[in-house]
């Protein structure tokens, strides 16, 4: 009985790395024209993605309902119960704050879902196979999301600001908002919320888990304020003040000049703070994306 050797893997023919790409490799040639892809293709793809899922319509729909609903309700309440001095020294624009604060939760959710949901479904493998440049994918997602979030936020905040000023013109000693007030309460807050959403999108890319990333982001928005409220001890006063001034709701209120404290960020400062956070998160997300397996 002859003992045959186990079939050894055939000695591999050393692959000829030097071969000219394409030319040296025979095989099928497609009639489809070959294009050199660029960021524009990724943008088109991400735009199709974001508009073809229900979660986009839901989160943006709820955002608009919250901003308009709460903003107009607040204006109507103030108008109904206005004493002669109820709004003295304030502009009607300030009533838009609450709607946008609550609405920002929707933008955070949409931001996280834009990246993290692909990990939940496994779609990310298909995406990265179609576009091997991971940075291009992330950049396209970030741009498409930012533009969508900004446009919707600007439309909603602009509309509610106009309704509020027309409803409350001269009511209860309300101040007429200046051009600067208008810019901050529309353009400023919309840029801020879109950047907050972009930051969430990047956290979603880092955490890779929708529910986890949404929880973290909502916690980050609410926790500092809640913690500060419970820090009654004298020794922690400094920390408490810092938390109050730099918590995200306080930063948002800066755009309406009704900051929860007197010091801390003023003017357009919150925008630069959020821009810095988003830039740092983008760098972190890029580094992790390059390094990790999909």
């Amino acid at each position, binding site marked *: *009985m*002859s*003992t*045959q*050797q*186990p*079939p050894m*893997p*055939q000695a*591999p*023919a*050393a*692959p*000829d*790395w030097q*071969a*000219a*790409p*394409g030319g*040296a*490799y*025979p*095989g*099928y*040639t*497609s*009639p*489809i*024209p*070959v*294009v*050199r*892809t660029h960021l524009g*293709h*990724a943008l*088109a*793809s*991400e735009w*199709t*993605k974001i508009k*073809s*899922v*229900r*979660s986009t319509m839901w989160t943006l729909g709820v955002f608009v309902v919250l901003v308009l609903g709460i903003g107009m309700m607040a204006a109507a309440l103030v108008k109904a119960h206005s004493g002669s001095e109820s709004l003295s020294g304030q502009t009607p624009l300030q009533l838009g704050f609450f709607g946008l604060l609550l609405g920002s939760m929707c933008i955070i959710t949409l931001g996280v879902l834009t990246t993290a*949901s*692909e990990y939940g*479904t*496994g*779609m990310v*493998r*298909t*995406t*990265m*196979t*179609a*576009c*091997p*440049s991971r940075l291009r994918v992330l950049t396209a997602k970030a741009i498409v999301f930012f533009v969508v979030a900004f446009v919707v936020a600007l439309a909603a905040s602009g509309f509610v600001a106009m309704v509020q000023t027309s409803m409350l013109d001269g009511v209860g000693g309300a101040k007429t908002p200046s051009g600067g007030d208008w810019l901050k309460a529309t353009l400023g807050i919309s840029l801020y919320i879109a950047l907050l959403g972009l930051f969430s999108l990047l956290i979603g890319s880092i955490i890779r888990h929708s529910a986890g990333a949404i929880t973290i982001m909502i916690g980050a928005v609410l926790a500092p304020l809640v913690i500060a409220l419970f820090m009654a001890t004298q020794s922690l006063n400094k920390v408490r003040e810092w938390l109050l001034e730099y918590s995200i709701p306080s930063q948002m209120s800066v755009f309406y000049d009704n900051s929860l404290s007197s010091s801390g960020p003023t003017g357009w400062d919150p925008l630069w703070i959020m821009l810095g956070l988003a830039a740092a998160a983008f760098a972190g997300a890029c580094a992790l994306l390059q390094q990790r*397996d*999909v």
Partner: protein
Amino acid sequence: MIELAGLTKRYGDKVAVDRLTFAVRPGIVTGFLGPNGAGKSTTMRMILGLDHPTAGDVRIDGRHYAQLTDPLTYIGALLDAKAVHGGRSAYNHLLCLAQSNGIPKRRVAEVLDTVGLTAVARKKAKGFSLGMGQRLGIAGALLGDPRILMFDEPVNGLDPEGIHWIRNLMKSLAAQGRTVFVSSHLMSEMALTADHLVVIGQGRLLADTSMPDFIRENSRSYVRISSPQRERLLDVLHEAGITVVEAGGGVLEVDGGKAEQIGELAARHGIVLHELSPQQASLEEAFMQLTAESVEYHAHADPGAAAREWGTGWKGA
């Protein structure tokens, strides 16, 4: 052409893919076989640049995956049929893939038609059956009309008609000169589809051979014999120079198709036979033995024992 050179992937202590070196050539269907956890999917993910190899290199037509500027027109892959957003329609899923590679929109309708999903193109992928999901994944792979196609267990969840369809699809794709690389657990399925076989076990290359060679080497034919006069029969066969292997339960096995010869010998010596049946070892058995041995070889690290056991499996070629 896909070329792997010493491709290795380690997850912590676990070596999922161990120094794989082979090439997948155009114009034929190459089957990629291995039991569960052998490393097939991991290898395919590394080919697509999704997982970074721990060591080694893999190239597609001489280039790294990341260097392909329009990858879907180069290589189409079906990794996991469920890797779609359930809330998106089949049409939109394919459309966003097409757009990312600058593939004309009309291709979406074409591939939907090819896989037979036109009627449900606007339906959400969430509601798709396993087979429909598999077809959608195949549509995505065909979208760019690529030179190379890679399928990870494409017949999973398909009904017999679907299996027949995909078998023919793969053969026709290869006949057009494309490279077709398809993984499976099922040797019997591959025997019908593949022209070339790459077998791995525990991440290691076990065989890289053409299908006809594999069949010739592995489909051992033998004769099963049982007799109440076992000792006498053994003597007679020995005298006639026929090698006998004792299988369990008093059954004897003789390699080759010698049933007539043995029957005549027994009759001449007046030996009663209860069974005399020609047998053919199935390819499935050969495959199981091949991969099982690799596990054993790995565990004991005793080349002698392994070689002896190999001998029984591989003789009579």
